[in-house]
């Protein structure tokens, strides 16, 4: 059998806006390479290498401080606060490094660095609000003021959660993917049908605590990372959902594939075309899809998810390769199951933080 031959022209898959940003980045990096590179490059190393190694160091520091903060028990408030301050200082370091190097960095490195910094900020905000849930923070992302001078790491008191600014705000639109990141106690609504993209995109939910998420419409791929005590309702995913590191959550969604890694004490109400898989999970439960909003039937049908396949019950535990039932998952008992949830009433808020890239 010969493979199909309807191959479109190579390189024909760019999107105008995206291209323009890349071109701009390219110009930026060219311009800077003709001017003099950053002066503090280590002896013998290129400015990029020097940047990458300092960046990696600061990233490691931020990550370990954040995980120390997350790991501290409620009684060790002081320890957690100190870890949080250390994380904030490290993240400020990162911002400064990126800002300094931004002209000398090639496009990918710049984008990756910005996105890492944004993720760390988000994780920091999530940790901070978990620690002091009573304080309310403003995450408004409208201000485009230049970056504050970096925090002195020796400052004893925890800094307030730093404003989610980026060294180069004008580059926002090229950060990867739409999504909700780093929120606590919020109701997050996105209607994908309203966006006028010329092709479907992916969507990301990351570092959310105690949030309600309503995602109406269709997307191509959904990435979910680090959610705690959230309830997530999703219309239709034309490709796969990849879920990693969630706890105490409820998901109601329809997709072609669902892969669940490191989920604990979480319920899944699914319609899925292939067998859902779990890996490194415990206490996860499954039930049939139960979601309603105006137009969901159409979204499901157009995504090839119009029919119930019964696959929600055919869970494969990749960590339990035996004939007997895996101890890691079970069904949600019928009497405990959610009634069909109607999310028609959820509307996008106009607070400018729906696409919280910061």
């Amino acid at each position, binding site marked *: 059998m010969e493979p199909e031959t309807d191959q479109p022209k190579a390189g024909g898959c*760019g999107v105008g806006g995206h291209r323009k940003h890349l071109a701009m980045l390219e110009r930026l990096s060219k311009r800077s390479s003709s001017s003099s590179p950053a002066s503090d490059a280590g002896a013998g190393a290129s400015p990029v290498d020097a940047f990458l190694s300092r960046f990696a160091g600061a990233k490691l520091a931020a990550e370990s401080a954040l995980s120390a903060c997350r790991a501290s028990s409620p009684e060790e408030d002081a320890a957690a606060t100190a870890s949080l301050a250390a994380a904030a200082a490290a993240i400020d370091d990162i911002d400064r490094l990126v800002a300094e190097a931004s002209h000398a960095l090639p496009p*990918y490195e710049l984008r990756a660095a910005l996105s890492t910094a944004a993720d760390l900020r988000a994780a920091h905000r999530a940790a901070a609000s978990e620690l002091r849930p009573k304080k309310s923070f403003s995450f408004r992302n409208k201000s485009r003021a230049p970056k504050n001078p970096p925090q002195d790491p020796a400052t004893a008191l925890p800094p307030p959660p730093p404003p989610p600014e980026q060294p180069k705000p004008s580059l926002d639109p090229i950060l990867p993917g739409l999504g909700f990141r780093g929120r606590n106690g919020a109701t997050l609504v996105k209607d994908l049908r309203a966006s006028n993209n010329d092709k479907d995109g992916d969507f990301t939910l990351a570092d959310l605590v105690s949030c309600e998420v309503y995602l109406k419409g269709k997307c191509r791929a959904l990435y979910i990372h680090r959610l705690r005590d959230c309830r997530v309702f999703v219309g239709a995913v034309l490709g796969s959902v990849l879920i990693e590191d969630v706890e105490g959550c409820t998901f109601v969604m329809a997709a072609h594939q669902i892969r669940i890694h490191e989920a604990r004490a979480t319920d899944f109400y699914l319609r899925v075309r292939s067998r859902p898989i779990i890996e490194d999970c415990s206490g996860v439960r499954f039930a049939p899809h139960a979601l309603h909003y105006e137009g969901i039937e159409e979204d499901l049908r157009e995504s090839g998810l119009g029919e119930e396949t019964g696959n929600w019950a055919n869970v494969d535990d990749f960590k339990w390769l035996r004939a007997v039932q895996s101890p890691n998952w079970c069904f949600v008992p019928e009497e405990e199951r959610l009634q069909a949830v109607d999310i028609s009433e959820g509307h996008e808020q106009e607070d400018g933080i729906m696409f919280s890239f910061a």
Partner: protein
Amino acid sequence: MGLLSIIRKIKRKEKEMRILMVGLDNSGKTTIVLKINGEDTSVISPTLGFNIKTVKYQKYSLNIWDVGGQKTIRSYWRNYFEQTDGLVWVVDSSDIRRLDDCRAELHNLLKEERLAGASLLVFANKQDIQGALKPDEIAKVLNLEVMDRSRHWKIVGCSAYTGEGLLEGFDWLVQDVASRIYVLD
């Protein structure tokens, strides 16, 4: 060329190539294999263990091993290395968060002596998704230029969803492997 290797080539079953498909889970390996074989790609369950497919491609018969990419089984990849002619590394170009993981696994794999002679095709898959990184960006983040000079490799952007790029990639891989192992043609 040494006599032994000539003999080995003659002894090979005619026009057969062994291709190993690897990459993180969810990158689209199984979809790619089904697509080039003209099969239905609408329902694909995640792969546990591996699938083997024999695909007729031009005048060759490709023996494609599609190995599951889950963390649990990455350590078993090595069981499939023997006599691999071509290596296809598939990347989900829209899963930016796991690219570090992806790079580490790839470079681990390339250290493997039994794969030293294999041609490497990197598929930057899912180009149909808005926001996916382009092949040259993937090449940078995967640090492909540090590869041993003796390795034949190429990166191609593709979409298993639309089929774009798949033929370009496999054409290159098959030609490259063929020019090494079927010199006696």
